[in-house]
């Protein structure tokens, strides 16, 4: 459909950040080419198109590279405006959506890795407390942002759905690897139901990696991180 527009995503399947770009494009029904990044070593294309951070994803549109997943999602929303708005229309609602996106990425999600890297039961318990406190906030945010709808975005998948939804695979990996139930249906019923809904959503399903594949990748990555931190 949008072939002449020449849309490409440079990324890798495990990355939640890459997933965001793809979910957004899927929601907008924009065709794109997915270019799998080599990672080790980083490709010429990556180094040239994202010289500042050298990270995926990079979105290419009309030859222009756009970097940073949240910026990419907003770019997609502002470029393909006739289909499926991603950010809310009202400026206040937009501010709230942006707030939660930053919270999820900067404050809540890092706790998962901390939990996986923790060495003692004490440390784990402390981080788990923070994870649950965050989940409680998100459970409340779901009600405020969603205004009774099935999504953070209300009646349709929106910005926060994409941002948090892209972490679901890794949250499930953390749950399986650690035995910690994060999206506990008893504690956080709305969030748990929402999570199932996201994974079943068409625009997400096609880009959400298979759990066992992620578990394998996660185990390798954890081993590498633990080795690196103990080598210091």
């Amino acid at each position, binding site marked *: 459909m949008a072939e002449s527009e020449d849309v490409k995503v440079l990324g890798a399947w495990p990355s939640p950040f890459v997933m965001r770009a793809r979910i957004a494009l899927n929601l907008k029904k924009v065709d794109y080419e997915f270019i799998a990044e080599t990672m080790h070593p980083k490709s010429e294309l990556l180094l040239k198109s994202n010289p*500042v951070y050298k990270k995926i994803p990079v979105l290419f549109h009309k030859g222009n590279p*756009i970097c940073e997943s949240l*910026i*990419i999602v907003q*770019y997609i929303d502002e470029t393909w405006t006739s289909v499926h708005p991603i950010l809310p229309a009202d*400026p*206040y609602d937009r501010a709230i959506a942006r*707030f939660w996106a*930053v*919270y999820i990425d900067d404050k809540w999600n890092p706790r998962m890795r901390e939990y996986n890297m923790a060495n003692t039961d004490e440390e784990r318990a402390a981080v788990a407390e923070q994870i649950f406190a965050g989940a409680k906030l998100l459970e409340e945010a779901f009600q405020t942002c969603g205004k009774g709808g099935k999504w953070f975005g209300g009646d349709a998948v929106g910005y926060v759905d994409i941002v948090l939804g892209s972490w679901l695979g890794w949250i499930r990996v953390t749950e399986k690897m650690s035995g910690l139930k994060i999206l506990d249906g008893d504690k956080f019923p709305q969030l748990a139901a929402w999570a199932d809904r996201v994974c079943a959503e068409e625009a997400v399903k096609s880009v959400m990696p298979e759990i066992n594949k992620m578990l394998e990748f996660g185990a390798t990555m954890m081993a590498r991180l633990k080795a690196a931190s103990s080598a210091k």
Partner: protein
Amino acid sequence: MGSDLPEKGLVLLSSWPSMFGIRGVIALEEKGLEYEYREEHLGNKSATLLRLNPIHKKVPVLVHDGRPICESLIILQYIDETWPGADGAPCFLPADPFARSQARFWADFIDKKVYDAGTRLWKMKGEEHAEAKKEFIESMKLLEGELGEKPYFGGETFGFVDIALVSYACWFHTYDVTGGLNMEAELPKLMAWVKRCKERESVSKALPDPLKIYDFLLSLKKRYGIE
């Protein structure tokens, strides 16, 4: 009890040395908006602040008709979107989506790199300090390159990235002293841009005296026992 917020209108909760708060002041002044400025003392945060920003407990918080907006870049966009082109004032973010994405990218870069390296200039010693110095100058040079020959980051008009970065200008003297730097010599184009921005009433009103910022840092270091 100090938590009396007006039902209608704008209130900015901020702290005078905060570059993030300064952004809010510049934005409100640029749009010619009426607002109440409330100073927060960060060693003794008000009940109102804690109620409005319970998660981060930070300034700035913009309150509009009783509703809080947190995070300075989110506040900038909120102001820009709620009062687009008010009184002939230009929009902070450009109209073109690609140009907007670039503006957001550089504003985000400023907060990721400049804030972090700048803070380490006065917190760290030895090797870590040397590392911070290198990163700080590299980041600032990248920004100077991005500015290029344009009068502003926004091109002909003062915009989003200009506000995001000029808010740090009052801290440059402090970075010079703590970093052993000479930003005037190393970044002449950027310093010329700072001068140009300061000619704007919004900026000159918002930026405190750099010497006062340095004194503030000294008292902050004393309070936290940082050498």
